[in-house]
């Protein structure tokens, strides 16, 4: 092994080890300095030593990453600090602060008075909101009028000289935001809603924070109506294992208590539903596609068979109290465990009017005839079609169950599933550690730094690939098999010259077109990782390849995306399904817009 191999190998150790070695001495260094300073003072005033030593024991020595601080100005000189103490010790901030201009980093002139502040103790592993009253400390009017600059404020746990400090940005511009409300145009379907509940549905707001006051009043009214009705009112189930298989990248499944009007779908916010929605593109201020939004089209209500004792039992569906006998025409799925009803008639009467109401809420939503046709095609294809119910399938695992590579393969929805034997050459580096849950690969991986830093390059793995993404504790995975024949056919179909440039990793080395790509699966204490061969391609080539791999079939659009014509996929290809919790997201959703217009 050469010296270059050795330095490369050492260079590729886990980022966690590198981070640990960087921060390990911080606390020790701090305590060392304090010890010396306190010792010096002790020669003069011994009682101060005792006080300081005691202070050191009670003030937490946190690393910078152990605390997250955000500030929001609410007007009248009041700043709300939201502080998350991620350490194992209680954090005690002091009631002193510094405020700097962001642009010049100069200290803002103060009156010398300290701010009024609540209790500044934050328990270990807790988040606390603290009110900071700056009225006697700063010229509030001057701060509010300084609209061209940000500020950052600093807090400390032990004085700004000896203690640790934390900063966060704050703006003193007072928002003139007024919650928007819109009158519902499509109201015919509301005729069947219980009279006392109808007002709730007649207007709506896109503001997800403003929906709560309305929802709380509504829940009280609902409970009054339900207790008046008596009988067995069956709650819907929340078992995500029985999940609609979208099997395409233009449909979104999001679980929520609220519908797209921000209105409760059930009797309260504990009842969740997963509408089947069509994704549509959105535009940023500069006219670029920035992702997608969704328009719920079908509304499955799922119940446990065991909970329904009689056809005269009730279901509560968006303001309507219906017996299960009345629900019968809406049934789309039934097995020994669950029964599902599709209830979109209780959400809208006319599809076009409904969609236009949606457009009112989002002025960033991109809408044209092509998108409208896709929504309409989707509705027409599934409305009354038994396939809508047939697509409900039991998913093979839950998030709290151990996941193995077998399970991952079972989860494959985007291509032919690989077998464990297929993968066995790649299964290396098993170990028991960690507490995260995810799958990642090359340029899309978030927690490993083996991605490519050139904006125009990416790696296309040969063998198989995993698309995205470990984020939080959710599994998000798409997987498809790709073999040499696939790649060769792609190259031939597009007349791509074989490797025409080199890839650059973040390691600063320039590599040839043949790459080794890492994969990683973590679930609780179980980690599997390994690597596989890949080929380096330019970004346009990669996009072409994805199109080729997944959209080569002429029927794909008609059958899976309900579009009448073929258009290029969006500028960015991101697919984030969660078969664990039954939701799916695709962005950017620009596929049905003429490419590069």
């Amino acid at each position, binding site marked *: *092994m050469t010296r270059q191999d050795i*330095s490369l*190998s050492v260079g590729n*150790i886990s980022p966690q080890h590198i981070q640990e*070695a*960087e*921060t390990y001495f911080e606390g020790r260094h701090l305590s060392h300095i304090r010890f010396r300073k306190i010792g010096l003072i002790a020669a003069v005033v011994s009682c101060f030593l005792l006080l300081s030593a005691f202070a050191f024991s009670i003030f937490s020595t946190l690393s910078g990453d152990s605390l997250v601080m955000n500030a929001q100005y609410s007007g009248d000189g009041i700043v709300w600090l939201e502080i998350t103490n991620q350490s194992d010790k209680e954090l005690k901030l002091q009631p002193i602060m510094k405020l700097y201009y962001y642009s010049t980093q100069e200290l803002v002139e103060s009156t010398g008075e300290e701010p009024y502040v609540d209790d500044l103790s934050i328990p270990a592993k807790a988040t606390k909101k603290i009110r900071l009253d700056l009225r006697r400390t700063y010229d509030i009017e001057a701060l509010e009028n300084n609209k061209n600059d940000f500020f950052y404020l600093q807090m400390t746990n032990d004085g700004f000289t000896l203690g640790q400090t934390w900063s966060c940005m704050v703006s003193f511009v007072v928002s003139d935001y007024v919650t928007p409300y819109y009158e519902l145009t499509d109201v015919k379907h509301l005729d069947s809603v219980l009279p006392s509940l109808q007002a709730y549905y007649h207007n709506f707001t896109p503001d997800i924070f403003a929906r709560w006051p309305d929802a709380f009043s509504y829940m009280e009214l609902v409970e009054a109506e339900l207790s008046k009705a008596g009988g067995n009112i069956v709650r819907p189930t929340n078992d995500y294992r029985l999940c609609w298989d979208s099997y395409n990248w233009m449909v979104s499944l999001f679980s929520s208590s609220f519908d797209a009007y921000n209105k409760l779908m059930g009797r309260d916010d504990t009842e969740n539903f997963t509408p089947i929605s069509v994704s549509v593109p959105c535009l940023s201020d500069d006219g670029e596609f920035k992702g997608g939004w969704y328009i719920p089209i079908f509304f499955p209500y799922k119940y446990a068979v065991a909970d329904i004792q009689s056809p005269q039992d009730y279901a509560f569906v968006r303001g309507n109290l219906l017996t299960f006998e009345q629900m019968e025409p809406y049934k789309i799925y039934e097995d020994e465990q669950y029964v599902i009803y599709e209830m979109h008639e209780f959400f809208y009467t006319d599809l076009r009017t409904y969609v236009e109401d949606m457009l009112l809420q989002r002025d960033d939503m991109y809408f044209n005839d092509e998108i409208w046709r896709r929504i309409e095609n989707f509705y027409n294809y599934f409305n009354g079609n038994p396939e809508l119910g047939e697509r409900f399938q039991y998913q093979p695992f839950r998030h709290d169950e151990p996941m193995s590579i077998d399970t991952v393969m079972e989860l494959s929805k985007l291509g032919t599933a690989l077998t464990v034997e297929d993968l066995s050459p790649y299964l290396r580096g098993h170990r028991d550690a960690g507490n995260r849950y995810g799958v990642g690969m090359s340029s899309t991986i978030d927690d490993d730094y083996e991605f490519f830093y050139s904006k125009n390059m990416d790696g296309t793995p040969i063998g198989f690939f995993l698309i995205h993404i470990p984020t939080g504790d959710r599994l998000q995975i798409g997987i498809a098999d790709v073999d040499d024949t696939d790649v060769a056919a792609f190259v031939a179909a597009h007349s791509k010259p074989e490797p025409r440039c080199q890839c650059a990793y973040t390691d*600063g080395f320039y590599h040839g077109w043949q790459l080794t790509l890492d994969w990683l699966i973590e679930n609780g204490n179980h980690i599997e990782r390994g690597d596989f061969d890949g080929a380096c391609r330019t970004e346009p080539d990669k996009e072409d390849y994805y199109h080729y791999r997944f959209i080569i079939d002429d029927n794909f659009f008609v059958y899976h995306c309900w579009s009448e014509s073929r258009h290029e996929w969006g500028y960015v290809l991101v697919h984030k399904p969660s078969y664990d919790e039954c939701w799916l997201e695709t962005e950017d959703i620009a596929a049905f817009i003429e490419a590069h217009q």
Partner: protein
Amino acid sequence: MDDNQIVALFYARSEQAIVELSNKYGKLCISIVHNILNDTQDAEECVNDAYLGAWNSIPPHKPNPLSTYICRIVRNLSIAKYHANSAQKRNSQYDVALDELENCLSSPATVESALSARELPRLLDRFLDSLDVHSRVIFVRRYWYGDSIQDIAAKCRLRSNTVSVQLSRTRDKLRKFLSKEGYIL
């Protein structure tokens, strides 16, 4: 400024991002490059290239932690430079550290050696996981950051000799570990 704010500046394409990155991690980056290359001019070049790498890669990436991200870019650029300058006289801390590891990691030259090289980072991770945190940090500071024995000793408040002995024991453990895994005979 915290890391999230610096990353936000990168996302806003504000050149202030580089300034803030440099303010916060510049000294750390310089020390890593200097340990490896022992050349002030090269160090500045590498650090500037690393900032450019960060500028080009954020967005789309959101590194967390930012320090490890930038350190890794800096180190790898330095190593690339180091090997490009391999004809030069060996004179850096990193040469000495590499000599120490070379004795420990040399594997038989076989057709599997390329595979072994690919496998080694995984094995190193597993080995580091098996160490106590103090030994692990000293190992990483020495062979990843390229710190001198004296620097590590000062940081740990130990005598240099103690650090040397500890590193020697860790390398012995590594040799045994790799032998057990079939990596070296």
